[in-house]
């Protein structure tokens, strides 16, 4: 039977989601936003969703990527590309190559993508 590699039951995928959460938290903190303020900017009805995402539970819905990128002051393409490295590493690797590089201070390098925080 086919086993979907994106399923979070695998430890590696859980870790990736947690990394995504940490990354989102770092972006938010760099913007000087509280969780409640970010929730207001991205249109989340309850600000507790932000905390949930930042701990690696769940994922940002694709139809919210643009508003999130804007709220966190990140280029939308870079934002989505980095999220893809966490949410869909298989597709990401095919499209963009290795995901093994680590972020650097100031500039974040996630999976070979250089992210500039504005």
């Amino acid at each position, binding site marked *: 039977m086919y086993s979907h590699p994106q*399923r979070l*039951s695998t430890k590696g995928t*859980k870790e990736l989601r947690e990394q995504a959460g940490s990354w989102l938290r770092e972006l938010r903190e760099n913007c000087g936003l509280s969780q409640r303020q970010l929730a207001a900017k991205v249109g989340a009805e*309850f600000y507790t*969703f932000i905390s949930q995402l930042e701990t690696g539970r*769940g994922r*940002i819905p694709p139809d919210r990527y643009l508003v999130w990128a804007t709220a966190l002051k990140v280029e939308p393409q870079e934002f989505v590309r980095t999220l893809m490295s966490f949410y869909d590493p298989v597709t990401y690797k095919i499209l963009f190559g290795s995901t093994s590089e680590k972020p650097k201070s100031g500039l974040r390098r996630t999976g070979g993508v250089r992210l500039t925080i504005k």
Partner: protein
Amino acid sequence: MIRGALPAKKLAHGEKSSCLWCRLVTKLRWETGHSSEEIKLNPNCGAFKMIRNCTLAKYGSTDWSLLELSILEQAKKTLEYQGGNVEAECGITDEGDPWLVFCDADTSNVLCHFARLGSDKYVACVPFDNVGTTGSALADVLDDFFSSPVGRGRALGLSSAVSHGKLRI
């Protein structure tokens, strides 16, 4: 069991933290000196208030109370009994409000999100769907949520429950 919900504490000999209920009763016994039989699971019970205050003082957070956790655990067990394979995860926001999610254990998709906002407002909803139930009594909020089309739909979204065709809420 709901992970991350209660602070770890050394158990006395022979006491096993095998489920939330056991931990709840054990903690109440430690904190109040009451026997298991004396402990009443009542939000207005002095023992519960004492435990909640002790927890706040000790751990400096407004984490879920034991009563709230027992209600959430019961909801989780109900889902599991009806065929779902549910995981619960919880956390606290930067303002100290607790949240808890039920995830499909097979896919880890978040099925529903519960939170307490401030001291007495509860929320049960599907993340980012902007549909949910709020109220001042957690048990009522859960009942309303799982009776609603959205809540029922999310519960039915459990992959194992769907595959077995068992889930009825």
